[in-house]
């Protein structure tokens, strides 16, 4: 199996290259089949890897070639698949495959069809490289490459200014995170002389706690960018400029979770620094809550889902921060399916509504598009954490993890986020599928999408509904066992081990002996919160209960509502405080003053001084012979005088 590992990313890459080069003139529609087939084979192979890993604790490895053999900084292109990778492979290839199929319908007739089916497998390739990497540099390659694909696909409609802006913004904001990430990589390399994961983990005990904390925080910066955490999440809502399948695949299911995956992959680094984890937990919790508050004020269906994504990424990051590693990955997995499904469903709605995205111009769609409605409902329930649906199990575990880690305040914040996630998703659901038809029926004729789109929805709905049982019973399900090897620290040196051992002992005691009572309590709270959200949404948007009227509440909340609706003015703050000053500084200070006036001014100044002195000195030459003779005489007197004074015995 390990010999075929390279095919998993390679096939999509080939598809991407072939489609890009030949797509425009030769392949055209055929490109979709090539891409889908490649991804399908990748999926099959991933399945093989998964099955292989199910029964084995030995990771699969494949050495391809030495990518960057720069002395100690040795970055071989190795593929590596352990349990964690296997889970990610499954998630990535399955969702990708479905999105590919779905896109064949969704993108029908688009002039950039071939381009789409070139970028999409390229993304799959990049994501698979990220997942399969065995060292930091290859991971960084995948990390940046998915960013590129995100850029290409957000800006897919490159004739739209807003799409271009969003694409650029996504890339640049991501790069801020990447900056931190790469400094983290360099820090680890500097201290440990390697960037290969396994060697890195072996040598971690050489690091002081402070260094570890710094390294972990730097690496986390990468995750903040990629996984759209506070304060860098601003790019993700704008990323909805891309075609909806892209949002489903990249900005919900896979790419944005790369940050979480990265932290899981670097578990030994992160788990060794409790300070860093605390920061991570706080960021995650705040992100989850704040994104939720924004989501309830949005009217664009994709934006609601986008903020929901941010919020759920916050859940995952929070899980990492409180040491609930398995829960984080578990939530990542369930979220991939239900959020992918939500986006695809939203895409189907948009498709059926002739590119309308504003929920205020929708309503009552359930009778026009039943399949979409049903699958969307399943996904929404999962997202809201309605009991038995996938999202419930994973979210519940995150909350329990927070409590067990004794982050009580944060856990309460997370409760709020959980309530909000139920509220906004059902708000969206009800606004879209229930209530009166607010669109102009003369122009818009809602219709169900073709089966090429609905079939993936149905397929995706299955895991979105039931995949949660992979984590049943809570804290002790299959997923926990499977990921166990990834999240235990081994092989620590004596002294470090003793220090960690205590911590770990407590940890294990807490984690693996969760009382049934606690499980039940948290299940109850979760259920309460999710139904609470559902209920409020129902009352407000279906029953139009005056006590829950959104307009009234919006007016009552006033500035707070404005704050939410304007996403805390983060974009504006960045624009005013960073972007504009930077432009001003670059142009007015650096370029116009430092460069042109000072540096170049000095250069030209030398020339001017020379020219000026030339113009002045030439006037010495008066044309008057007596002056010339005088010059000679003065020169003689000076030369003779000085020489006599200094060199002769006259004065000395």
């Amino acid at each position: 199996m390990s010999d075929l590992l390279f095919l998993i990313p390679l096939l999509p890459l080939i598809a991407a290259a072939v489609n890009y080069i030949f797509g425009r003139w030769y392949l055209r529609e055929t490109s979709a089949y090539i891409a889908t087939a490649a991804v399908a084979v990748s999926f099959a192979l991933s399945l093989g890897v998964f099955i292989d890993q199910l029964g084995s604790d030995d990771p699969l490895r494949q050495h391809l070639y030495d990518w960057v053999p720069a002395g100690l900084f040795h970055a071989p292109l190795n593929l590596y698949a352990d349990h964690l990778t296997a889970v990610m492979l499954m998630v990535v290839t399955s969702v990708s495959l479905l999105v590919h199929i779905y896109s064949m319908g969704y993108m029908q007739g688009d002039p950039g069809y071939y381009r789409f089916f070139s970028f999409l497998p390229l993304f799959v390739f990049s994501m698979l490289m990220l997942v399969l990497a065995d060292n930091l540099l290859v991971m960084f390659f995948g990390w940046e490459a998915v960013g590129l694909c995100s850029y290409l696909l957000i800006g897919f409609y490159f004739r739209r200014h807003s799409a271009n802006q969003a694409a650029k913004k996504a890339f640049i904001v991501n790069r801020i995170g990447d900056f931190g990430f790469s400094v983290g990589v360099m820090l680890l390399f500097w201290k440990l002389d390697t960037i290969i994961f396994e060697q890195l983990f072996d040598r971690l005990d050489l690091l002081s706690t402070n260094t570890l904390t710094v390294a972990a925080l730097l690496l986390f910066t990468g995750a903040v960018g990629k996984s759209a955490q506070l304060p860098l999440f601003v790019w993700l809502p704008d990323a909805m400029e891309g075609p909806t399948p892209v949002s489903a695949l990249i900005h919900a299911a896979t790419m944005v979770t790369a940050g979480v995956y990265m932290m899981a992959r670097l578990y030994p680094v992160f788990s060794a620094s409790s300070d860093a984890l605390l920061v991570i937990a706080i960021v995650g919790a705040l992100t989850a809550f704040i994104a939720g508050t924004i989501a309830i004020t949005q009217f664009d269906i994709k934006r609601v889902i986008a903020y929901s994504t941010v919020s759920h990424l916050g859940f995952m990051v929070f899980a990492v921060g409180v040491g609930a590693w398995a829960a984080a990955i578990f939530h990542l997995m369930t979220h991939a399916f239900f959020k992918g499904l939500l986006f695809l469903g939203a895409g189907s709605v948009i498709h059926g509504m002739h590119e309308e995205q504003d929920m205020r111009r929708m309503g009552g769609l359930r009778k026009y598009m039943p399949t979409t409605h049903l699958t969307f409902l399943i996904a929404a329930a999962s997202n809201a954490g309605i009991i038995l649906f996938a999202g419930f199990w994973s979210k519940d575990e995150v909350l329990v993890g927070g409590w067990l880690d004794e982050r009580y305040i944060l856990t309460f914040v997370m409760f709020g986020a959980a309530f909000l996630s139920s509220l906004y998703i059902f708000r969206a659901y009800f606004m879209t599928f229930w209530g009166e038809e607010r669109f102009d029926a003369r122009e818009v004729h809602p219709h169900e999408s073709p089966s090429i789109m609905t079939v993936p929805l149905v397929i995706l709905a299955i895991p979105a509904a039931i995949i949660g049982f992979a984590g049943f019973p809570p804290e002790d399900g299959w997923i926990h066992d499977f990921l166990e090897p990834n999240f235990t620290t081994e092989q620590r040196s004596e002294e470090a081990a003793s220090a960690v051992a205590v911590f770990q002992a407590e940890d294990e005691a807490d984690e693996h002996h969760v009382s049934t009572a606690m499980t039940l309590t948290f299940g109850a709270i979760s259920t309460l919160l999710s139904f609470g959200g559902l209920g409020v949404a129902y009352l407000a948007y279906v029953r139009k209960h005056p006590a829950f009227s959104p307009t009234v509440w919006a007016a009552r909340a006033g500035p707070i509502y404005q704050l939410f609706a304007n996403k805390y003015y983060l974009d504006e703050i960045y624009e005013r405080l960073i972007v504009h000053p930077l432009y001003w500084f670059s142009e007015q200070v650096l370029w116009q003053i430092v460069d042109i006036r000072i540096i170049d001014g000095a250069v030209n100044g030398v020339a001017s001084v020379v020219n000026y002195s030339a113009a002045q000195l030439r006037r010495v030459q008066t044309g008057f012979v007596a002056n010339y003779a005088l010059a000679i005489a003065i020169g003689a007197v000076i030369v003779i005088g000085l020489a006599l004074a200094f060199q002769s015995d006259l004065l000395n």
Partner: protein
Amino acid sequence: MDELSATHFLLLSAALFIIGMMGVLTRRNVIVIFMAVELMINGVNVALIGFAWEQNSMIGQSFALFVIAVAAAESVVGLGIIMALQRRIDTVDIADIRQLRE
């Protein structure tokens, strides 16, 4: 300074030399400048002959002879230039002869 010594002659030579030089520096009439230079050269000759007298060598006198001869040749050339110039522009004032400048 009771005895006649080379110092006397050297001082005289210096005086002549410098008076000549000041003539070159102050006069505007080309011909007078020319005369001033002759003064300088005579100053040199006094020095040469003075040194020869002091050292009992004839080299100085011989040198002075060549100086006089060369000075004569120079006079010829100089006066030739003055004549040629005077033929073009009717002046011997160097303040008028300053088209070439700066």
